[in-house]
């Protein structure tokens, strides 16, 4: 399924993001032990962070669901009066649907031929 694929991408991205954060913390503590001055993070950590951020964003966008059209009329264009006229609160049931059901028993039979 497509969604599990995107879910995997998201988790991969998040995991990689966490890994980058952990590496940064490790780097800081290493500098502290060896007594060096902190200037900036090594470029591989920065690149990993940025790539995994975009990876996560890509995955999340696809998981979040379908995008909707921003114009109000577009969604209505495909609707027809057939569905628009249905009002669930006002359904009534004495129509021919009754006669079509498998359990239907006519109440009385007129004496016509078969």
């Amino acid at each position: 399924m497509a969604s599990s694929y995107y879910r995997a991408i998201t988790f991969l991205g998040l995991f990689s993001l966490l890994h980058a954060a952990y590496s940064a913390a490790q780097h800081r503590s290493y500098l502290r032990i060896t007594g060096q001055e902190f200037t900036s993070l090594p470029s591989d950590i920065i690149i990993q962070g940025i790539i995994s951020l975009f990876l996560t964003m890509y995955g999340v966008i696809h998981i979040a669901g379908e995008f909707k059209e921003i114009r109000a009329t577009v969604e209505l264009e495909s609707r027809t009066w057939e569905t628009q006229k249905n009002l669930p609160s006002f359904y009534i049931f004495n129509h021919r649907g009754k006669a079509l059901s498998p359990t239907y028993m006519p109440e009385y039979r007129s004496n016509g031929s078969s």
Partner: protein
Amino acid sequence: MHWSEARDIIRKWREENARNSIELVELWEDILKPKAYKLGDEHYLVLEQVCTAAFDCNRLDVATDCLQVLSSKFPGSVRIALLQVLHLEALERYDDALNLVDSIIKRDETNAAPRKRRVAILKAQGKTVEAIKDLSEYLKVFMVDQEAWQELCELYLCEQEYGKAAFCMEELLLHNPHNHLYHQRLAEIKYTQGGFENMDIARLYFCQSYKLNPKNIRSLYGIFLSSANVAASQKCTSSKKKEANQLSVWALKQINERYRDARGKNDEALDSLENNLGLLHLNSTTS
């Protein structure tokens, strides 16, 4: 079919109010019922939907199953009580249904759903006038209920009270100014009412409907017929006549183009369509 596809279809129908009752019951029985536990909280919504649909096609066995599950889960709920009312209605025991609905209304005065159900029962009994009276009373309090306005419009149409039906439709229009179907419907009501003024209004509403949704061929036909009618009227001023004539010609051209696109060029059906449209034109001018 996978159960999640069935769920998506049913969800879509629920959101659009599609009344595909037989298909819905079949989907439920064949695919979704064994997997119902996977639906989570949506399970109960689906059960309610299936229950209503089952009453609709008189599958009382399915409906009572759903009802049992729901009423054991939510005892004392108004929504479930309404399903029981539906059950009585499906059995055509209308007096019992009315009594039950009245008791529900008494229990919770502020709930809109049982009041609407009461109107539906009256309608099912064929007492349209009483249903209209009841619904108007209801709308005096719950005056933004769009479903109710639409139903009142339908009821008035049954009684051929077009002016009042148009009023209800306008109410819907106020809340959904972007819905082409409501514009189209209002135009149709005005068109049915007849007379020069109404015809002119109908023409404008058809135009608006077409503008909101250029795929709506019904309103294109409406533009053609109403503007031809306006042009033929004796009350029409000459400048307006010219404008209406232009409009009807334009609409006719659009319709023709539409059919040509759909059918491919040089189709013989197109010729007969043009002939028929000519007839329509003749009819509308003579009427």
